[in-house]
């Protein structure tokens, strides 16, 4: 294998795939990235056995071929080479070494054979549809902060993507929850997605996908089965296993009868919560919201630090109510609100509160109060 490629293109592509490779690996081949040169194309593949990313870039290929090299070392080398450099990659099959040359720099990297590199078979992917990159980004952004990190309830460690209907309109929905808060976002159901099985996409896949899709210029083709999902766009293919578990019946958690309605300017509310939370203890992060007709009083106290209080005007007529929330959870949600107004629907100090974005019908959040 021998090829020449521009540093910036190689760096971008390696950047796409190297984060899939775990820093610590007991199996040496999993520390490597596969590089495969064919006609005018260089394909880079990285995998952790649950997730594989292939990124293709243009290259001047003299001799096709393939091998694998340590991903993070390769990435670091390319990163440190001067901007604008042209890089020559030459694989010496006999020595099992990849030579990396650019200007006066020359590196030799030990390789492991391509044959040892694990291939992630997708099997049959019966459901196929396509989704705009922007729509996919929104689904992820509005839900991923609520993904649980708790290992015992592993089925919460991802985004639940499924088909549903809102007011009779078929929707593709993303839901994530950790038991303290729940985030739901939806987009009209793309054709081809009707009848798809609900799948749980693991957190790491969600995060890698979100990074990759940032620069996407085309729609994202999604194909899935019960166990695997594949995303294809531009020159990128991401294949991932799905979490084998049952996502809880989240609809039951979304309160229906909350009758106290609060509307507040989302930005000033978020800033006030952030300020007041400076005082709340590291462990609890609790902020108390005291509601009275026409206004909210936010407060926090910490036995060690002192107290904070801030008052905001709000549209509210539900009578006196004191309720506590984890300020981080409040900020996670308000951070996703795009419209001017955040809408709260509350019942009482112990029941789940519903939060909506006045500027975005498609997003919905549920937040469990704290005892304060």
């Amino acid at each position, binding site marked *: 294998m021998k090829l020449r490629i521009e540093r910036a293109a190689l760096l971008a592509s390696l950047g796409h795939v190297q984060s899939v490779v775990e820093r610590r690996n007991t199996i040496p081949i999993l520390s490597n990235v596969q590089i495969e040169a064919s006609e005018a194309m260089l394909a880079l593949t990285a995998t952790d056995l649950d997730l594989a990313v292939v990124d293709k870039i243009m290259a001047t290929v003299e001799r096709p071929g393939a091998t694998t090299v340590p991903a993070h070392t390769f990435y670091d080398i390319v990163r440190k080479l001067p901007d604008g450099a042209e890089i020559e990659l030459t694989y010496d099959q006999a020595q099992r070494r990849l030579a990396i040359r650019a200007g006066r720099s020359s590196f030799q990297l030990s390789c492991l054979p391509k044959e040892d590199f694990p291939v992630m078979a997708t099997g049959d992917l019966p459901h196929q549809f396509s989704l705009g990159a922007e729509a996919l980004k929104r689904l992820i952004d509005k839900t991923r902060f609520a993904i*649980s990190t708790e290992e015992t309830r592993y089925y919460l460690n991802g985004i639940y993507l499924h088909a549903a209907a809102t007011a009779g309109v078929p929707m593709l929905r993303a839901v994530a929850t950790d038991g303290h808060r729940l985030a739901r976002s939806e987009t009209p159901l793309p054709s081809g997605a009707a009848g798809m099985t609900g799948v749980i996409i693991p957190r790491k896949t969600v995060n890698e996908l979100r990074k990759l899709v940032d620069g996407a210029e085309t729609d994202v083709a999604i194909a899935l089965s019960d166990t695997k999902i594949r995303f294809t766009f531009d020159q990128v293919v991401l294949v991932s296993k799905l979490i084998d578990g049952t996502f809880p019946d989240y609809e039951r958690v979304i309160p229906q009868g909350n009758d106290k309605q609060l509307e507040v300017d989302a930005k000033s509310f978020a800033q006030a919560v952030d300020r007041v939370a400076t005082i709340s203890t590291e462990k609890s992060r609790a902020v108390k919201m005291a509601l009275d007709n026409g206004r909210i009083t936010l407060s926090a106290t910490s036995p060690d630090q002192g107290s904070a209080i801030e008052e905001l005007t709000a549209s509210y007529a539900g009578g006196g109510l004191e309720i506590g929330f984890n300020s981080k959870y409040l900020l996670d949600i308000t951070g996703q609100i795009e419209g001017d107004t955040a809408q709260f629907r509350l019942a009482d100090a112990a029941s*789940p509160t519903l939060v909506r974005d006045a500027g975005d019908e498609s997003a919905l959040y*549920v937040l*469990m109060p704290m*005892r304060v």
Partner: protein
Amino acid sequence: MTGFCRDCLTDVDGAAGRCPACGSPRLLRHPELDDLSIAHIDCDAFYATVEKRDDPGLADKPVIVGGGRRGVVSTCCYIARMSGVRSAMPMFKALALCPQAVVIRPNMAKYVEVSRLVQARMRAMTPLVEPLSLDEAFLDLGGTARLHQASPARMLARLARDVEREIGITVSIGLAPNKFLAKLGSEIDKPRGFTVIGRAEVRTFLADRPVSEIWGVGKVLREKLAADGITRIGQLQDRDPLQLMARYGAIGDRLARFSIGEDDRRVQPEREAKNVSSETTFDEDIAEFDRLKAILWRQAENVARRLKKADLSGTTVTLKLKSADFRIRSRAATLPDPTQLAETIYRTALPLLKVECDGTRYRLLGVGVSNLAPADLADPPNLLDPEMGRRAAAERAIDAVRAKFGDAAILKGRGFSSGGRAKPPAGSSSPSSHNRRNPGPDRR
């Protein structure tokens, strides 16, 4: 000079050699006797003394407690010490020095029990009791004289006498103006000692003592000091603290202050707990999951009760097992939220235990929680687990019944092992279970 008899506590004036009331020679006299209030109490050869107490046949024999765990001497009695046996000495070496010694495997549960009795008596004298381990503690008796109608020295002598008479073990006491000197004092006249170090004699008392007796001077610093020709505390007296700090780092300040007997550390009664745990050493090794499970439940209840009592909750649940060959396995799981419920601790530890039940025979099982948080953060309502609230309510109802009618009023079936003999419920003082509330790593 003011003084009294340590046996009958009668005041003694003048220079009599024996107590005029009871004839005892154990008279305590010191010009500052009634002015000092910081004490260090150290039980004499604690484990060995407890064993001798429980088996009078051992009274005149050399006794070594140890072996088992790491094959070293934990404690040896004073008879064994005469042959040169020391604690932390490898067992084979100890037996070479003292072949006739009786070796006893440590029975920690029993020592914990005795330690509790002794500490309870200390706490009856002052709330400022800082235990350093099972067998030693600092006490600050400042300001208690009027309450007790007796000076700290007299109260301490009474404590030593009562512990000896009623609990059956002996202690040595150091009474001084501060912790550093009190601890040195308790070492001086062991066993059954009572040493008073007054402010007036501090400098002369310390001058000839080795620098290694200063708290914080370990092997490395001792060698560094020795290389500079300093081996006695007296050589540090009147040195400029800044110079000592420049030469030895931050500890230089302490070298200067401790060398003239100045120590302003307070007696700290409650160190913040880092974990709450309960563990049991079995009479016979156990391999069966079902039997271990029942013990685990009782321990979980035990931990939960103490969390509730201390207004704490824990986020990380740790299971500890010790196999018959003394290998320790510990497995932990972290919860999304802190808990103080026995139910949650049990449910979290159970799968960890299940995995370890691979036929290995265990001699010890324990469960604990760490990563502690205040009680008001414990067990928050969960969107996905509405049952949680009900379980918490059920457990609090059980707690309320037990508070009223005793721990045995309500027992869960899972506390009885299937096929095994039913043990007393958690919470009653099962003789082979002991509880620990571990202090932070900065203990000494």
